[in-house]
């Protein structure tokens, strides 16, 4: 293969036998300034966070009863300066913790945009 003139491997990722799964467990995306609050309003609804990216320098994830206010912190990370990309981190270890409360909250640095990808899950 290495000696075959003109051999070319396309850089475009191929969606193959996983396509059905990708569609079944469709990723949702949410973007907010400094904070994202996902309402846990449906009985049994859980969210699996698979990617987090922010132009700010910090991310905190937890649960709370009011949008934007975390009262039960489950994850935090701060670095000197943004942007902060935790996509690989949560790609390996999706945040799948659950609590019977009103919101799953992702907070970032003040005035900085934050984006998360998550999957809705019903056990």
């Amino acid at each position, binding site marked *: 293969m290495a000696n075959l003139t003109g051999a070319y491997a396309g850089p475009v*990722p*191929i*969606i*193959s*036998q*996983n*396509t059905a*799964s*990708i569609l*079944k*467990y469709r*990723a949702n995306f949410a973007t907010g300034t400094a904070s994202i609050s996902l309402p846990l309003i449906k009985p049994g609804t*859980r969210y*699996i966070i*698979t*990617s987090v990216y922010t132009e700010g320098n910090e991310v905190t994830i937890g649960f709370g009863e009011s949008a934007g206010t975390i009262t039960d912190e*489950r*994850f*935090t*990370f*701060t*670095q*000197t300066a943004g942007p902060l990309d*935790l996509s*690989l*981190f*949560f*790609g*390996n*270890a*999706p*945040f*799948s*913790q659950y609590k019977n409360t009103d919101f799953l909250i992702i907070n970032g640095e003040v005035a900085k945009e934050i984006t998360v990808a998550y*999957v809705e*899950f019903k*056990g």
Partner: protein
Amino acid sequence: MSSLPVISANTDAIMRHQAKFITSAADIVIFGTSETRQILLALKTTGASVGIGVGYIGELQIGIGDDSEDNFTGDLVNLPVLVNTVSVLIDDVVKGTDDGAGNITGATISAGTVDYSIGAVDVTFTAPPAQDEVITVTYTGFDVSSYRNIVGAAPLDLSGFLKNAPFSFYKENGGLIVSPEAGEETAIAYIEMRERE
């Protein structure tokens, strides 16, 4: 094979084996029971290097009092030794601790040092321990065979590396230790499984 991230057949497993998260600017030490194994899934630190391995809470007897000898030495075997985990005891009573900079201090210790890298301990008491009193050192250190110090550029993200190869070393009675550079914030994700699960 798709190179896209997929939540698919693994979704149920993700929910069943929920990842735990710890963030700290100091050493992270996780000891379960004797039959639990911690699997490190992801790691991100603001520093440029991090040590990972299985470790133990160790104990070494460095001497027995005879009313005359005031200096005792020994070599700790689980290396490197974690800073701020070294204690010197006489008959199970703590007489001194390390200061994180290689010095062992205490009211009844006139001089004391520990080399965290090679494990050498040297302690001199202000007065010789009494006849038959047992002098020991307790500490936390890495199992040498599992310890790896990974050096890169700050901020160091080992999540991609661990995606291919989760760190899952197991030693009976051992625990997972993650040792970042001093003062550098480090976040880890891990799951804990029973060894005979």
